[in-house]
């Protein structure tokens, strides 16, 4: 045991000397490893980011909510067949609200884009959402300041609004927005509440950049009442989601006058679909990442093997000297394995140092942080590649005949 430890230390010392003596060559050799480690790290970081963003932005909406919409999420269906579907209208929402026994809250949701103004400050292209008082329950969002509009305000079509946090920051940098009157398009609305910040997901439009107003007023001021809507249905409990879905489906089919043989001309979307979409994005990133990583590490490993053969040849004389004074095969093998592993570890460290700033760029798109586990994995992977690709050269070195090696010039 002590033999091994001493020989290991000697190997480490010598390999550091060798790497230092050939700085340029060592750095170039590790390039493949560097690329491999950068890719494995960024992949890990991106997946971590997706996970976080998903949990934050999407899971907040709630797994017990059904989204009755014209089109299904995630596409994949025959667009040409479904693009002519009839819009969903407010009367469908009424039908569900009246008949669904498994729904805890039902709310219509529709939207358009307008500029929003307060005094001199202006935000262009804001999504204006028309909905009713139940929205706050189905959306799973929380109000940070003030309140959401009441059923009375909603039904009466009062000119009140709740605004997203980004709008609040942009229009009211230094004052309390509650009670202030803003202009949405050409119409005045009084701010009654500000939503809590939600963040954005996968570069989708920020949920914080929205204004929410009563849907009745929305139809009189921003659209005619034939504009399509979505209906958000919150089930009474999580385990009733599937039953609620069937119930809503039946109500919708009846309300839209579908015959038994007709297909649904609407979609009832669920977060599950989003989870699937998310998972398939994750799988794609992981697949591409693993492919690049594997390829780079393979090429890098070949490079390391090559340079280790060169190193063994260059140092034949040294090997002869060591053998002459009593180094066993094991010690020579260990020395070159350590050198190869140290070289790859160097590549791994350069790779991590390169990946870290890049992960900060990813952070701009997908809030994330480089996970500690991926750092450890990266370092272990590089050591492993070093040992595997260094084995053949090290084995050859350990088998050299001492007399021949000493005579080598």
């Amino acid at each position, binding site marked *: 045991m002590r033999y091994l430890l001493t020989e290991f230390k000697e190997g480490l010392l010598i390999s550091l*000397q060798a790497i230092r003596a050939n700085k340029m060559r060592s750095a170039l050799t590790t390039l493949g490893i560097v690329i491999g480690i950068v890719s494995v790290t960024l992949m890990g970081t991106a997946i971590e980011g997706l996970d976080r963003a998903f949990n934050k932005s999407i899971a907040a909406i709630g797994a017990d909510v059904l989204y009755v919409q014209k089109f299904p999420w995630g596409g994949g269906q025959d667009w040409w067949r479904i693009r002519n579907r009839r819009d969903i209208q407010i009367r469908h929402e009424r039908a569900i609200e009246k008949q669904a026994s498994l729904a805890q809250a039902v709310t219509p949701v529709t939207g358009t884009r307008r500029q929003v103004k307060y005094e001199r400050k202006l935000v262009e292209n804001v999504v204006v959402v028309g909905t009713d008082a139940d929205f706050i329950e189905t959306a799973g969002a929380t109000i940070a300041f003030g309140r959401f509009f009441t059923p009375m305000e909603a039904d009466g079509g009062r000119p009140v609004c709740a605004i997203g946090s980004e709008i609040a920051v942009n229009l009211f940098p230094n004052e309390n927005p509650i009670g202030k009157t803003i202009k949405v398009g050409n119409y005045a609305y009084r701010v009654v509440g500000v939503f809590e910040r939600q963040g954005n997901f996968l570069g989708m439009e920020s949920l914080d950049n929205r204004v929410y107003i009563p849907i009745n007023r929305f139809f009189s001021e921003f659209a005619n009442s034939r504009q399509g809507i979505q209906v958000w249905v919150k089930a009474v409990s999580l385990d009733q989601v599937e039953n609620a879905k069937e119930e809503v489906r039946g109500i919708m089919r009846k309300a839209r006058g579908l015959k038994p043989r007709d297909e649904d001309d609407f979609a009832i979307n669920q977060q599950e679909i989003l989870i699937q979409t998310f998972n398939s994005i994750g799988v794609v990133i992981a697949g591409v990442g693993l492919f690049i990583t594997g390829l780079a590490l393979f090429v890098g490993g070949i490079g390391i093997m090559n340079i280790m053969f060169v190193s063994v040849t260059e140092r034949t004389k040294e090997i002869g000297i060591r*053998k002459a004074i009593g180094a066993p095969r094991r010690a020579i093998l260990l020395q070159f394995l350590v050198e190869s592993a140290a070289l790859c570890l160097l590549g791994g460290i350069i790779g991590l140092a390169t990946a870290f700033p890049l992960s900060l760029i990813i952070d701009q798109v997908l809030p994330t942080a480089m996970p500690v586990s991926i750092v450890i994995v990266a370092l272990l992977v590089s050591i492993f590649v070093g040992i595997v690709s260094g084995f053949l050269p090290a084995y050859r070195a350990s088998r050299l005949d001492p007399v021949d090696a000493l005579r080598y010039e």
Partner: protein
Amino acid sequence: MSTIIRLFNITKVYQMGEEEVHALQGVNLEIKKNEYVAIMGPSGSGKSTLMNIIGCLDTPTAGLYELNGTNVSEMNDNQLAKIRNKEIGFVFQTFNLLARSDVLHNVELPLIYGGFSSAERKRLAKEAIERVGLSDRMHHKPNELSGGQRQRVAIARALVTNPSILLADEPTGNLDSRTGEEIMGLFDMLHQQGNTIIVVTHEEEIAAHAHRMVRIRDGKVERDEMVKHRRIAKSIVTS
């Protein structure tokens, strides 16, 4: 005096393609403890081949080699490495030091493979370096030393494990005659301190330091005699 080396009918054949080179053709030799032997002979006569076999760097094609009573002619690679580490100190014509390591590390090296602790290694290495008179060069690299000094480092490295025999294959071959004399003075001293020494040389003056002279020709021992007019280094120089 006990016998350290016993060679019986040692042969060594090199295969050069079709041709066979008979480097050694039946060498018989016995060397006792604390002997001081010079091996001489014309170029190509097989001196180095013989030294490599005695030093366990190489194995004979046929014959028996007993070192300290154990048969080493049939040992495997790792067993031979152990013998080289413990029993043999080898000094080469071209010094063969590790260029990137300093004097101390070079001398420590055999102890690393001998499994000594770090403190023990430092102590023994410093002692050996002191014996060859290089204490003030401990942290110099080989290329910062003169040829004579390098050979002293090599001798310190050979001594450090306290081996049964010191083997030197033309240790003065790369040195001028004055420095060569100094190195031989060092060997004389080590012999007086009880070491067993075998030196290969071309030069009569160098060989005259030894007690016994073995002449090799065409892979055979031609003559084996005691040195009549021994030459002792005038001063055992230490710097």
